[in-house]
């Protein structure tokens, strides 16, 4: 059976609680998440521990990103001028629709029929594949995980590992059905089947589409990180290469790149470097024996400039390693699809409301225990918990809060001002909760409106004696 999810056109971030409940009761997903995130966390920790000084490097990487963001418009212009001087056409896209139209126009101008595409989260934002197909173009996702997503009519659930939500058995069933491969759930056999299928696609594509992990302003260079080699294929074999790049991806120098690319690969997959890091400075030189004849770079805004001068600007420093997803106890349990848009996990809980509108993703800032694991894992030390809290504040200020919670907090405020009332309330809560507790001492279902709390978790009963009681007993010499 295939993993079927929502239509990619539909954002379901507001259904986070509902989506999570389904995810928590999906045993296959739970196995896949457990296998995937455990490996990812172990790999990252091992790779970061063997560096010269992990925290100093994170600070160095953070400084590189913040400095670049401070100078963002000038660096974009610098990169643009460098690339243009080597014959690259630079296009700008305010939103996804404009980005997609640019790509369609380029394809039509160059008589393109088939497009080989490598993994790019920016184009997930714009639903580029659907736009290209609607324009009559054939597009093949060439990253193994993205290819599985494409033929399953699914969406990626992780920014580095698109099919983290799938087990090998699910991929087997899909390949048997779509690629007619003999049944095998050996990942090696599955990969071999994909390699064979993809060969013909690479050599016959007229155009390649990639993203970019960094744009280096100093040299006018796109840096693309990959392991499979498909990004190199897409940017080397077809006659036209188009790179879609978020405007926040620009960094200053090659020295910044050296730190950031290694922080990225170590944090994403635990590798010292990925198999391929390709530096692209422009289309092929006239006398090069291969390489693209035409090259385009599309700088995509799609809401980023709206974040730029706000208190959330730090979220633009993200280098998309996925470490905060893997380490997050919420992501580990509900997976990526529950978040309902392109970017899941802690960083997704920030940028989804910021890029798509806070009322389209109101539950996401609450989808965190604020445990801080994300900030600790982040290679550029983004203060994710702080921004989640600020977003919660924005939601309340905007009138988006649960009346029950507001009433509860008001009652608490009133009661806590009066010691007698506080103590009385505590006694009542203690008695009530202990009556409700099951044999294991936990409350599995709170009554009436409070029941929402226990829908997906238990509630511990209050202690039999309050701190005040214990203190009084201690002072009067009684033991409990």
């Amino acid at each position, binding site marked *: 059976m295939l993993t079927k999810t929502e239509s990619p056109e539909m954002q379901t971030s507001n259904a986070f609680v509902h989506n999570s409940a389904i995810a928590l009761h999906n045993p296959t997903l739970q196995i*896949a998440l457990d*296998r*995937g995130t455990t*490996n*990812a966390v172990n790999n990252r920790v091992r790779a970061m521990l063997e560096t*010269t000084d992990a925290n100093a490097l994170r600070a160095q990487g953070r*400084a590189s990103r*913040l*400095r670049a963001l*401070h100078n*963002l*418009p000038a660096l974009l212009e610098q990169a643009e001028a460098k690339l243009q001087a080597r014959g690259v056409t630079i*296009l*700008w896209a305010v939103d996804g629709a404009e980005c997609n139209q*640019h790509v369609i126009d380029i394809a039509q101008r160059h008589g393109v029929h088939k497009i080989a595409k490598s993994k790019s989260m920016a184009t997930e934002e714009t639903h580029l594949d659907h736009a290209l197909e609607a324009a009559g173009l054939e597009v093949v996702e060439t990253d*193994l*995980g993205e290819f599985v997503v494409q033929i399953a009519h699914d969406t990626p659930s992780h920014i580095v590992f698109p099919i983290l939500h799938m087990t*090998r058995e699910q991929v087997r069933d899909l390949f048997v059905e779509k690629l007619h491969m003999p049944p095998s759930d050996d990942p090696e056999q*599955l990969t071999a089947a*994909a*390699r064979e299928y*993809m060969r013909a696609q*690479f050599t016959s594509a007229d155009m390649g589409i990639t993203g970019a992990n960094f744009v280096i302003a100093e040299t006018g*260079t796109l840096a693309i990180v990959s*392991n*499979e*080699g*498909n990004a*190199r294929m897409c940017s*080397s*074999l*077809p*006659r036209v290469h188009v790179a879609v790049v978020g*405007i926040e991806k620009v960094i200053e120098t*090659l020295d910044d*790149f*050296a730190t950031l*690319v*290694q*922080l990225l690969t170590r944090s994403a997959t635990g590798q*010292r*470097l990925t*198999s*391929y*890091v*390709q*530096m*692209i*400075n422009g289309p*092929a*030189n006239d*006398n*090069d*024996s*291969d390489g693209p004849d035409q090259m385009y770079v599309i700088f995509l*805004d799609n809401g980023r*400039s709206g974040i*730029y*001068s706000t208190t959330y*600007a730090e979220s633009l420093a993200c280098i998309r390693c996925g470490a905060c997803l893997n380490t997050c106890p919420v992501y580990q349990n509900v997976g990526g699809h529950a978040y309902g848009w392109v970017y899941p996990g802690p960083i997704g809980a920030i940028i989804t409301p910021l890029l798509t509108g806070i009322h389209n993703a109101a539950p996401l800032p609450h989808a965190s225990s604020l445990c801080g694991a994300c900030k600790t894992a982040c290679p550029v030390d983004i203060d994710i918990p702080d921004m989640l809290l600020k977003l919660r504040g924005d939601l309340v200020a905007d009138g988006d809060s649960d009346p029950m919670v507001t009433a509860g907090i008001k009652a608490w405020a009133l009661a806590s001002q009066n010691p007698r009332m506080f103590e009385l309330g505590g006694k009542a809560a203690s008695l009530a909760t202990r009556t409700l507790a099951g044999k294991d001492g936990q409350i599995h279902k709170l009554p009436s409106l409070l029941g929402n709390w226990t829908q997906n978790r238990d509630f511990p009963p209050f202690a039999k004696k309050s701190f005040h009681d214990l203190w009084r007993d201690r002072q009067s010499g009684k033991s409990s």
Partner: protein
Amino acid sequence: MNNQAHSSRDRILGALRAKKAPFESASARPSAYMPVTAVEHTDTDALLIRFTAELERLTGKVHVASSASDALETVMTLIGDDRTVLAWDVLPLPGLRETMQAHGISTIDPHARGDVRGEPLALMATARIGITGADAALAATGTLVIASNAAQSRTASLLPPVHITLLRRDRLYARLEDWIARDSREVMNNARSVAFITGPSRTSDIEMQPIIGVHGPKVLHVVVF
């Protein structure tokens, strides 16, 4: 399209400049960056040992030749019975082209430019072996630095399932940081594409289980001379 593109450019840059830029207190560019890994011994022999250990950890195979003729013999052994290979026009190992020719080994024309590419690329994809040089190698990560230019095709290190790289000993650097500081600007100025290659092609997309050889080469040989 151009008018529209220009107005979008102005809109985006205008929006970024409309208010105060964030992170005014971001620290100034350091005069020296801390390298990501420590490399204690930087003499060529030590770098070669480190490079070999790193690459072999990733299933790459390093063959250290005692001389150019030894390297030549190693390459011929690696080619084995194949009579067609994909290779750079100019290979750094003297005599290799002539020796291959003498053994009846032909090279596929690496030319794939212009509008008709399907056939030449499909032909190149039939080669089992690709042979290239390397502009540099980075010991701490086991990385090859390979630039593309008129004589150095992109496909030779990309399409064949077996990639043989000829690496001169004096091209070894300790780290990415060292190559960037000493050589990168010149290489980057002259090449439109520079690839850092660290081991064979791989994926961990299915349950994060590492699998070698997805779209690029499955086997990577480095012959050091």
